[in-house]
């Protein structure tokens, strides 16, 4: 996974709240710190200068800072005043997912040793557009890299026998498969293809995914 994140691909919850010296109000707060350093309570005003920071997080009301696993991140900050920016865990889930999906385009040809092509930027863009329409009650899915330029996302709640997968090939559409049950005893399953990535998610897929949350 790439450890590079740019301001432009941070989620709006972060990039729009590029404030100086705000106080964390809820959830989890980002703070820019120098690598291996301590949190910088007064971030330097070096707009336009490339600076490398590591994002660290703290929960509101907790004084200690700790790195969030898998989010040790270099930040290309034009104005690195992230101290006090409040983001929700949901935003972090989206950030991590976005970062992971975007990293797939950097895979080399034959990245799996079996002749795979790296996912295309168009496929990643389609996945991100699709995810922009995620209903709030649906958890963020896992990302996955395809072997033919495609990408996918999926939910796998094996204990609840709920599974759904969505594939993107970069043509502005997606295909999905959602199932409740196990292969030897499928209770309900739905699938479709050619769906517009900018449209609302199909009710049938949501119904499967909500089986888990309605238990």
């Amino acid at each position, binding site marked *: 996974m790439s450890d590079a994140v740019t301001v432009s691909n941070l989620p709006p919850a972060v990039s729009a709240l590029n404030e100086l010296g705000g106080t964390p109000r809820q959830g989890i707060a980002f703070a820019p710190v120098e690598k291996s350093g301590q949190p910088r309570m007064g971030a330097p005003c070096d707009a336009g200068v490339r600076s490398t920071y590591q994002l660290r997080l703290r929960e509101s009301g907790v004084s200690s800072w700790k790195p969030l696993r898998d989010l040790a991140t270099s930040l290309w900050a034009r104005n690195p005043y992230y101290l006090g920016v409040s983001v929700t865990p949901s935003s972090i889930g989206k950030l991590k997912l976005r970062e992971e999906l975007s990293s797939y385009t950097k895979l080399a040809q034959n990245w799996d040793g079996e002749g795979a092509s790296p996912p295309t930027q168009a496929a990643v863009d389609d996945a991100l557009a699709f995810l922009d329409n995620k209903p709030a009650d649906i958890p963020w899915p896992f990302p996955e890299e395809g072997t033919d330029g495609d990408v996918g996302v*999926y939910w796998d709640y094996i204990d609840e026998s709920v599974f759904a997968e969505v594939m993107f090939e970069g043509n502005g559409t997606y295909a999905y498969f959602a199932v409740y049950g196990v292969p030897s005893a499928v209770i309900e399953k739905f*699938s479709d293809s050619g769906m517009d990535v900018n449209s609302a998610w199909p009710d049938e897929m949501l119904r499967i995914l909500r089986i888990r949350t309605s238990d």
Partner: protein
Amino acid sequence: MPCSCIELETKYGQGECKCTRYREHFPDCECEKESVSEHSPGPVEDNEVLVRTLFRKQPIDQDGRLKPTYFRREPPSRGFSVDRVVVVGAESLEASKRTDGRYTGYLRFTAARSSDIRAAKVEDGTRLFCVYDSATLANRAHADICQNVNIPTGTENRRQLMMEFAWILRYAFGTPVQTPPTSLETP
């Protein structure tokens, strides 16, 4: 046209289209009834544990399970390679993988029971996967899982079916572990 399963395996065993050829010439898993390789100790039995070796971490997700895409590419084409642990033994299998050219320090194993893979069927009752004893001179425990159902490019619901078939195969294989499993619980 190949006259026998052994002839087919000899001719296409190392190619990208092996499973396609099996579907064309010996449909409905016809070649499971006999050995497809002269190096094999015999056809794969239903109670055998089939072990898939992972040399890379990338296909494993945050829950420690294999990503669905991992099961999508090989079964319809070149075959999904596995090893028959009963033929070679777990320790020997693991040792052989440590000398494999693909080994770079990472090694995990995931396993499925042959009968679970053979039990998978599509809605009209057609077997979804076949298990062939495609042993090689260097690896007499080698076997292949081949998709028995053809989904030609351009088929309207091709992508959906690919996801469904991968889900079925993924369900049969367990969470990757550090040593080759020799027995399995019913999934």
